[in-house]
């Protein structure tokens, strides 16, 4: 197991390196000049040229890449062109809202979707199945921003129960933090509820046709025990996989939700950085996203051993 983990961790290094080179080149080849953005609308070409020089953008691509990659290997992601602060500090500031939103969304989605999926599988083809799957289709179909504005209109503006925008850090208190998380996570969770419920339904349906379920029923076990301890446990691998991918996707990009609810997370930081051509920040954030995908995938793989003892690393 330990060797497997080490091997997987070592295997991430070339992946991250390829991502780093790709992102670096892609950004430099994209039109747009951070110096022009920094200088402001009335600046002249001369002033812009001076800023380019001060940012080191006049150096050759190879030199720029060498300086950057050497710093990254030392754990230094550089300094944001715009915020004049280390990219690591900037990311650290934005990580908490995104992680909190991602985790709240996934927890909510799992708590709702897994029972729904099991119920739908249990009553496959019946009215309950059709209703639940109909709702899940609806969940896929509603654009996130439409649902977000609807919830804001109803819950915040009409009922006045929850705030419209913003994020409060956990350090400011659990309750303010949760008050600001409920609507965004509810908005985001709808699509994940639909996704996880469908996967759960399919996996549990398959499991319910297996011999061990028939045996469990023949032994006279109560139906909930058959469903949860036998069918669901054996259907866990695809469900865990989709949950894991969901977490990785949520960390990588909840731009619309973060924008509508004005949550200062990594999604918004990425968009702002791209629009401003803030190269160090974009590079840092994408490296982080890549690392998150790798780690989540590793955790998913490792979790398989918990659900299926036949799997060994």
């Amino acid at each position, binding site marked *: 197991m330990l060797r497997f983990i080490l091997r997987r961790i070592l295997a991430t290094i070339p992946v991250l390196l390829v991502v780093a080179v790709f992102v670096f080149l892609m950004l430099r080849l994209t039109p747009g000049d951070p110096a022009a*953005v920094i200088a402001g609308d009335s600046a*002249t*070409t001369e002033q812009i040229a001076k800023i380019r020089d001060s940012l080191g953008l006049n150096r050759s691509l190879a030199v720029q890449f060498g300086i950057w990659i050497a710093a990254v290997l030392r754990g230094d992601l550089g300094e944001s062109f715009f915020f004049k602060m280390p990219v690591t500090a900037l990311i650290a500031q934005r990580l908490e809202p995104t992680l909190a939103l991602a985790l709240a969304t996934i927890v909510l989605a799992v708590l709702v979707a897994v029972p729904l999926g099991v119920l739908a599988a249990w009553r496959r083809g019946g009215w309950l199945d059709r209703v639940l799957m109909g709702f899940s289709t609806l969940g896929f179909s509603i654009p996130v921003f439409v649902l977000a504005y609807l919830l804001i209109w109803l819950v915040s503006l009409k009922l006045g129960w929850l705030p419209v925008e913003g994020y409060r850090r956990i350090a400011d208190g659990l*309750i303010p933090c949760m008050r600001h998380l409920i609507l965004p996570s509810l908005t985001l969770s709808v699509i994940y509820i639909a996704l996880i419920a469908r996967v759960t339904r399919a996996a549990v349906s398959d499991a319910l046709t297996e011999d061990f379920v028939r045996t469990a029923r023949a032994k006279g076990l109560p139906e909930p025990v058959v469903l949860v301890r036998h069918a669901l446990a054996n259907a866990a691998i695809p469900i865990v996989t989709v949950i894991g991918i969901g977490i990785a996707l949520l960390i990588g990009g909840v731009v619309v939700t973060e924008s509508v609810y*004005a949550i200062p997370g990594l999604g918004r930081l990425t968009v702002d950085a791209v629009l401003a051509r803030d190269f160090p920040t974009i590079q840092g954030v994408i490296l982080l996203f890549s690392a998150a995908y790798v780690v989540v995938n590793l955790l998913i793989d490792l979790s398989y051993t918990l659900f299926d003892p036949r799997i060994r690393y």
Partner: protein
Amino acid sequence: MRLRLLLVLAGFFALILCGPASAQGEKILRITPQSNLTILDPIWTTAYITRNHGYMIYDTLFGMDAKGGIRPQMVDKYTVSKDKKTWTFTLREGLAFHDGATVTSEDVIASLSRWGKRDSMGEKLMSFVESMEAIDARSLRVKLTEPYGLVLESLGKPSSNVPFIMPKRVAETPADKQIDDYTGSGPFIFRKDEWKPGEKVVYVKNPNYQPRPEPPSGTAGGKRVNVDRVEWVIIKDPQTQANALAAGEIDVIEAPAHELYASFKADKNIQVVETNPLGYQAILRFNQLQPPFDNPKVRQAAMAAMNQLAFLRTQVGIPEMYRTCFSVYPCGTAYATEVAMDFIAKPDMKRAQQLLKDSGYDGTTVVIMQPTDLAVIAKLPVVAAQLLRQAGFKVDMQAMDWQTLVSRRAKKDPVSQGGWNIFLTVWASVDVMNPISNSALNAACDKTWFGWPCDKALEDLRDAFARADDQKSRKTLAEKTQARAMEIGTHVPVGEYNFPVAARKNVTGFVIGFFLVPWNLQKH
């Protein structure tokens, strides 16, 4: 057991929904600014958000009142010698920086020197300065090589780059390097420890600030602070801004989207306040280095095709928020004039078509850059393209984001190598009030603003304006400058529009001027 669990859960959710009591006794004004604050050095960038940040924490020697008059601000009194070559300024007593140090003439000299290296009006002023010397801690003497008519206008320049006064140790930062010490002497103190880029910027009242006794007007007069804190809450989505204002989570939106004003007017708790009657001027700019606009006759044909009402109706759509203005200087300001503006004052497509025919235009495709992500100007290029097509131009409108546009417009290359022919932009009217501050009138070839007009006659007129020391001659020279600019086709003003502030009705004391200023506001 089950009942107890239910009660606990109900209590928990009630707590969540009721939320914590807000901080007691502290008056906080929450403003959603026009954009995110990223750069904190107002001398390093011309970005308006950084200028506004500057006004929070710094003060200026002079200010401009709402009518365009220059008034002393940090300066107590000033004198000018008979030959108009020596200016002496004395600072007000009791001026202090946020760290408690007294503001001295050495600080002023260092600040003006740094500003003079980056700002166009500052550079012009410094080209006339022979020396700046401290007479004592509160007085300084500025000696000029020859009389210069815009000394006070330069020092009281309200918009970017503003000659803010910083401590000497900060102002000695090289002009091409950003400062990292934000000690000012202005009405607010910046809380860097609470600054969360992209989320929140916090300023607290400067308890030691000594406001002038006069009422506030523009950037001049008494800057009285009536709240304990001002928080800039960064919300990018316009609808979320409006929702937050309706819910009372923020108090002011600096520049709401035009389509939201109807909903503001329908809400009894919200007011729309015009703090900047001058508004913004939109312009169309030609690239004079590349065909077909390297030919002045082709530029004139394009100018004749322009129709301000078409631009304004499409871009803004709310009649009370736009106006036509046939002047390169904003209407209602000292130098506004319709001299030589008949090209655009009376749109005449037939004339445009005839002029284009006479110009020898060979059908070269005109590339118009359209910034799709900048709502305040995104529709202007669409109108320009249509009008030019009607006049007989072959047009290729290329969509891109604003940052691509600002990079591409710096390219002097032919269109086939990534160059351009036309872009449109909008700038605060206060920035273009005279021939020196108006960047589009600069015709010094390679060193000018994008588009690079090159015309000695126009430059001579601007120089004469800078040297003129009476209002009558300046007015005449401003008119001549406009006439020459239109003759050679530097650019085309395509109308003026406003973005009134939207605020909760319990906020009062908005200062009329050129943009939203933070002093004098009260939250009841």
